[in-house]
């Protein structure tokens, strides 16, 4: 079990308080104070589960803006393309589906990077991450991805087709 650290508590507090403000959307002193007290209690208990490594990584402007750019520009385009593909398959009568599970290597090293890539893959229709495996000898992480229409069985090419653009965008934020 990790120990609770001050930066982690501060970061958790900021997230909780931001959510409180978004959900109540009232700026009277009473509401804000109640929110601050509740967020502080939650942050004290939950910080060690919520933050595992450095707490302030998003304070770096380069990372912050590439994170924002990814979620606002790159990801919606990919999401749209994948959704249109899926809709075409479905309205075409689900005839030419060719499902399979492929193993693709990922360049990500950290837990957060792997989680971000696999969640982005799952979020685009047509691909679901089934399992994450680590190869201790090569120091690489592999994802097992269920793919609705297998076009490539070669791991590297399949990886490029599934997550090439997503991973390039996310590499600027996480390692």
């Amino acid at each position: 079990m990790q120990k609770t650290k001050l930066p982690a508590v501060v970061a958790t507090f900021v997230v909780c308080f931001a959510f409180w403000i978004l959900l109540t959307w009232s700026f009277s002193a009473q509401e804000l104070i109640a929110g601050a007290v509740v967020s502080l209690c939650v942050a004290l208990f939950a910080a060690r589960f919520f933050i595992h490594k450095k707490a302030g990584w998003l304070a770096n402007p380069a990372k912050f803006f590439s994170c924002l750019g990814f979620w606002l520009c790159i990801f919606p385009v990919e999401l749209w393309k994948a959704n249109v593909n899926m809709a075409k398959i479905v309205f075409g009568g689900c005839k030419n589906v060719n499902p399979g599970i492929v193993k693709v290597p990922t360049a990500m090293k950290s837990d957060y990077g792997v989680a971000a890539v696999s969640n982005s893959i799952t979020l685009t229709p047509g691909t679901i991450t089934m399992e994450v495996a680590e190869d201790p000898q090569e120091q690489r992480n592999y994802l097992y991805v269920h793919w609705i229409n297998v076009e490539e069985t070669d791991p590297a090419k399949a990886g490029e087709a599934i997550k090439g653009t997503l991973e390039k965008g996310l590499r600027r934020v996480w390692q």
Partner: protein
Amino acid sequence: MVLRIVCDVFFLIGLIFALAGTLGILKMPDTFSRMQASTCVSTLGTLGVCIGGVLYAAIGMHSASAAVKIAVIGLLILITNPIGSHVLARGAYKAGIRPEKKMETDDLGRDFDE
């Protein structure tokens, strides 16, 4: 009037993709493919409706509070949905569910089933 049309276009996009997802759930041949189709509903299906709702609440109703709440709903769905579908798919696979038609490749079965 223009706002109403823009909102309706977003609603329509959302509904079309929700329809595609639902049809996919009914018509796809096996468990995992059905799960793939259901992602359509929870991504562009909800997002389209959420964006339309945010625009309508913010500009049509002048209610920042409602707009922010709709945006938070969309954000929370985007955060929680992939974790849910990942765990469902993994659980189904570990429980021994396999498609009737043989899969094109099955690297997971190759590496983990002995």
